[in-house]
């Protein structure tokens, strides 16, 4: 077993996540897609921790930090979305273009 299948799986998940993040209309699904991309990165970190040039635990610890940051991001993101919905009545990202004006 080598590192290549893990990296390929991570690339597939990352690209799907990217597509979702840039094409979906619902802000919550966009957030979810971003989570998927973060997970792809975590998979890379852990795969390298085992099969990389220098095997060790540093990659796992990094992925832990990553998960923490992702949790914080989701919490704040959902809070912002709820507030936005309360003020503008929509979670559609195509309507969120007030910065243009």
């Amino acid at each position, binding site marked *: 077993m080598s590192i290549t299948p893990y990296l390929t799986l991570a690339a597939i998940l990352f690209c799907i996540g*990217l597509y979702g*993040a*840039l*094409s979906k209309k619902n802000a919550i699904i*966009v957030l979810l897609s971003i989570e998927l991309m973060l997970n792809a990165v975590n998979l890379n970190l852990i795969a390298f921790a085992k099969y990389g040039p220098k095997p060790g635990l540093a990659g796992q610890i990094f992925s832990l930090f990553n998960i923490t940051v992702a949790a914080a991001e989701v919490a704040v993101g959902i809070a912002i979305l709820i507030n936005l919905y309360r003020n503008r009545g929509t979670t559609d*990202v*195509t309507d*969120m*273009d*007030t*910065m*243009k*004006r």
Partner: protein
Amino acid sequence: MANDFTSYAWLVPLFPLLAFLVLIAAGRQLREAGAYISIVAMLASFVLALLIFFERLGHTTDYTWNQLKWLTIGDFQLNMGFEVTNLNALMLVIVTLVSLLVNIYSKGYMHGDERVNVFFSYIQLFSFAMLGLVISVNVLELYIFWELVGVCSFLLVGFWYFKPEARAAAKKAFIVTRVGDVGLFLGMLLLFWYMPGHSLDFSAIHNAFSQGKIDPSIATWIAILVFVGAMGKSGQFPLHTWLPDAMEGPTPISALIHAATMVAAGVYLVARTMDIFQASPDAMLVVAYVGGFTAIFAATIGTAQNDIKRVLAYSTVSQLGYMMMALGLGAATAGIFHLFTHAFFKALLFLGAGSVIHAVHTQDIREMGGLAGKMKITAWTFAIGALALSGIVPLSGFWSKDAILSAAFEHNQLLFWVGLIAAFFTAFYMARLFFLVFAGKPRSDAHAHESPAPFTFPLVVLAVLAVIAGFVFTPFNGWLGHWLGDHAEAETANWTVMILSTLAGLLGIGLGYVMYGKNSVSRDIVAGNAPWLYTLVYRKYYIDELYDVVFVRGLRLIGKAFELFDIYIVDGIVRLCSAAVVGIGRLGLRLQNGQVQTYGLATLLGLLILALALAGRRFFHLG
């Protein structure tokens, strides 16, 4: 003798310049005071010029001050300054006197014009330029003032810019004289190139050419190019066409241009650089023949014109031809003398014409007549001017014309007869003008009356000068020639020439009297028997039409082609650029739609392009 006043000669042009600055800065607020400021400034200049003139009497050494460092290129250094010679002093007096009288006259003539102070400021600038030109110490300084004179004539001829003819005349004056200016400029470059030490000072030019340090063929080229410049300014054939058209300007300006400033500049230039011409007999011959031809050519045109000012304009062209002829014959004193006397009687005639125009509100002499009874002062002074111009003893014009003709008689018989015939025509058209305007019955019902004092005062002063100015240089009294340092002048009275020129003048006047005064000979005798001749002369030998066909049309065609090129090629490229920028802007605007996802997509695509470029580079490097 001390140079007490001469060392302050630089103040003479400075007074008009100050007046110009004051008028241009505060013209609208000054109202009536503008005219007085001009007159006072001009008076100050005139008094100073007169003091300098009297101080110069008995002097022959020149006063030069050229300590103003203007330009340093390597070893070459160009200094500016001023120079007072006897010729300069005389010119200063002529210019300031005529300018002063024109200023006084304009006070009356331009009364009520709302841009009167602008007009006065232009006159001041004009006088400043001409005075600066006169006391210039080197050719470059002269050239600067020379161009300034050209600009002022453009401004003043086009003063009534709301008239399309005035606009066209101003442009014509500027462009035609510019042709001459190019000649002068090229001559100046040649001079700079071949002069020892690249000096452009008049004194250095005098030394170099009189000692024969310059190759004669080069001297010929320089002289002819300088003369081209003088042709443009002094209205010599074939660059004379602007001068009659310049009559579209206000009449005082015509007097100023014709008597003292603009056209005198050309004659003065040739007289000032006489050393160059004397180094080249060929150039002298060219000057003499061009002058002689212009004299008779313009005189014949003058006989068939119906505009009072145009008759006088062609008369000026003709008289300038006389001056050039004299200079070309080596009789510099005679030329300058004619310039001197001509300044007075031509200014007088123009101001008189202005007075007439002011009274009857037309410029067509066929609509005038019988004005002698109503405008006594104008009629008498105009008569004196006309007689002086016709060369009748003992008025000033007789003596100056006699000096030229006797020089021609000695050196070149052909030019003598040309000059004599021109004198006959001169007398004829002046008689025609006078009798049509002042004699006979009124041909229109305009209620003419004598003009007020600002008109008549300069007329009287100039009339007196036109009578007495000739006595400074007669065959019996060669004072002017001595003073100007021209020792080659023959001072013996040449009775043949005197009698012939007087006869020519009397014959012309007599013919004019029988044709236009008594009507005993039909005035249509030429037009009836030889209509082609009359038409030819009336249309000024079709010179304007010829220029129109040869130069104007061709240039206009080229201009049209370039215009099309400009519109479709140059503008096309410009519009293409702007359209491309606008298009890119539109695209950018569509990208900047506020949608974060679009930005993300653009970022992704950019990243991909970068990655592919990098990969492609490596790929091609490797294989």
